């Protein structure tokens, strides 16, 4: 068989049934092999969208997402999405066609050094030099993508390798064995002692917990060691809804209660998180009284930005039970409960215009259980994190580390294909939506019943908010008041839609959206003056949050 056919055989051996991509000259042999393959290919309308769909597929399912592109511009269009997967630790395998080796290095048509371009945005990348090494390389790519801290892997395959003949016998050993994670419990006793001694412990939960499959162990840990908990953007949904000590998201747009409690705690138990600057605010002033227990699978995160008094590396599933110690902090729990009570969300909002936080709360209450919500980036993204509740981090797909506008719509396509039985909703902004709007064609082609909510303030709202607060109201290039008619735009892709402007229209519009069996776009017009609160201003400590009243 040809190398191109081998690629599809190996994908099937890895259980891949769904791939996202876009054809072109240097990857034509693989697309030719695809023509009679049982692997289902979803044609995106821009390679960045295809790779975001692979990310959405991976994040919603826990499997490896796979995308393909041709050489040159096809490959460069993948770069942003690979960077997104890198910073959010998403297992993705990207396959790119490359010009034939005979012309490589000659500035051939659609030739670019994608291996060189990939260095900063992948966990690893390969150039396949002969058809004999193709199978082993693809197997390595899958192993690397999902092992340890997951991440994106790129495999660049020259056209002559795709066309080369090979006598291929599938190896029985290709079946993927579960690799045990090297885990050190050497510091477990120290961690237990810190927990037992703490008067004000706090669990700071990141995306690494669910990626490790340690959700049951986390609930058990929080039940056995009652303590308040906060989550990062990526970990929303990690703490069971009935856990009364959960305080919400921390960081720049976190809840006041979460930020204040973290600032006051005397022990911070960091589980699969990395002290990102959007979480810590001013690092020197972050949780200043706290000792730190840091649990992670990536040794490079330990002591990277914050010293850990006890560090445990490896499998979260093994570590959490091993550091369980009895906490005794009733006073602290009561104090945190009071903080929560004092700083609850308020949804009273004057006038008849739609208030996005309230609308999203209504959406959250109305959406079916286990719905997946895919966000874009900006004000709406923070409102989703603040005002919607999730039962699993796999139900809240938000571009965290890279903060990539244009993520939401294609990610929703991937999520819907990964979990066709679940409702999938994109919540986007009028700025972000336009960044991968071409993927409406993918939704149309495959009749994917994705629900699209465009929160429209006719602004690049988050940048506008910062201009208002920190740049003397000089609104440089953030006015989008000449937006297209989004309902008409959706209609051009045979997607019905509806536009609402008033609070009293929200419930009926959500009902109509969920009742409609297919894809649907709900255009929600809001006031451009509404901002995201609270906000930790740049350089400030997390207790110095700005609120609407103070701004």
């Amino acid at each position: 068989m040809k190398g191109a056919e081998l690629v599809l055989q190996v994908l099937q051996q890895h259980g891949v049934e769904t791939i996202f991509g876009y054809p072109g000259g240097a990857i034509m042999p693989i697309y030719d092999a695809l023509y009679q393959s049982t692997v289902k290919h979803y044609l995106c309308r821009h390679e960045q969208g295809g790779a975001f769909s692979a990310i959405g597929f991976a994040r919603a399912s826990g499997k490896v997402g796979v995308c393909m592109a041709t050489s040159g511009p096809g490959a460069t269009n993948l770069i942003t999405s690979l960077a997104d997967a890198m910073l959010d630790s998403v297992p993705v395998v990207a396959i790119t066609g490359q010009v034939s080796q005979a012309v490589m290095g000659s500035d051939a048509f659609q030739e670019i050094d994608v291996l060189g371009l990939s260095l900063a945005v992948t966990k690893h990348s390969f150039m396949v030099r002969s058809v004999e090494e193709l199978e082993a390389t693809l197997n390595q790519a899958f192993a690397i993508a999902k092992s340890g801290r997951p991440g994106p892997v790129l495999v660049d395959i020259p056209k002559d390798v795709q066309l080369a003949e090979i006598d291929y016998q599938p190896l029985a050993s290709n079946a993927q064995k579960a690799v045990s994670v090297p885990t050190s419990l050497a510091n477990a006793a120290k961690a237990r002692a810190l927990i037992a001694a703490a008067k004000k412990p706090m669990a700071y939960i990141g995306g690494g917990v669910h990626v490790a499959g340690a959700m049951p162990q986390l609930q058990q840990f929080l039940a056995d060691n009652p303590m308040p908990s906060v989550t990062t953007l990526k970990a929303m949904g990690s703490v069971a809804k009935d856990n009364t000590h959960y305080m919400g998201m921390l960081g720049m747009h976190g809840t006041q209660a979460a930020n204040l409690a973290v600032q006051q705690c005397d022990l911070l138990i960091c589980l699969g998180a990395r002290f990102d600057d959007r979480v810590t605010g001013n690092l020197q002033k972050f949780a200043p009284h706290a000792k730190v227990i840091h649990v992670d699978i990536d040794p490079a995160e330990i002591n990277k930005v914050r010293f850990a008094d006890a560090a445990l590396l490896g499998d979260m599933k093994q570590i959490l039970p091993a550091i369980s110690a009895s906490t005794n902090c009733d006073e602290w729990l009561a104090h945190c409960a009071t903080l929560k009570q004092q700083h609850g969300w308020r949804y009273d909002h004057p006038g008849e215009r739609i208030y996005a936080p309230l609308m999203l709360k209504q959406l959250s209450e109305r959406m079916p259980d286990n719905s997946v919500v895919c966000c874009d980036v900006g004000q709406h993204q923070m409102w989703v994190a603040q005002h919607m509740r999730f039962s699993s981090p796999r139900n809240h797909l938000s571009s965290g580390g890279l903060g990539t506008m244009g993520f939401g719509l294609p990610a929703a396509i991937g999520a819907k294909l990964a979990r066709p039985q679940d409702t999938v909703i994109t919540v986007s902004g009028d700025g972000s939506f336009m960044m991968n709007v071409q993927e409406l064609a993918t939704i149309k082609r495959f009749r994917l019943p994705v629900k699209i909510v465009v929160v429209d303030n006719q602004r690049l709202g988050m940048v506008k908010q910062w201009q208002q607060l920190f740049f003397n109201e000089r609104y440089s290039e953030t006015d989008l008041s000449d937006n297209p008619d989004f309902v008409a735009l959706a209609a051009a892709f045979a997607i019905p839609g509806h536009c609402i402007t008033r609070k009293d229209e929200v419930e009926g519009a959500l009902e109509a959206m969920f009742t409609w069996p297919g894809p649907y776009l709900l255009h929600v017009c809001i006031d451009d003056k509404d901002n995201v609160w609270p906000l930790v201003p740049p350089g400030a400590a997390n207790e110095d949050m700005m609120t609407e009243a103070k701004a």
Partner: protein
Amino acid sequence: MNHVLNITANNTPAVVERLLQVTRYRGYELAGLQLAPRADSRSLNITLTVSGDKPIHLLTSQLHKLYDIQQLELASAELAVLSA
């Protein structure tokens, strides 16, 4: 302050670029580089000298993660041998 790293790496086409990219991105300056294939030509012996004000573990922990790095030893400081 200069740090000398003795590295054994897979002899793959991009391995030196990877080392240098991580070194630059993490904020260290290149002060010296020597490399030679080992007898079997499948591995490289690399001596990387870098300078920087940040603690060197911030670089070594990132270099360790590179798939093609087999072994990394900090020659000039108190850190023990760290095997990849």
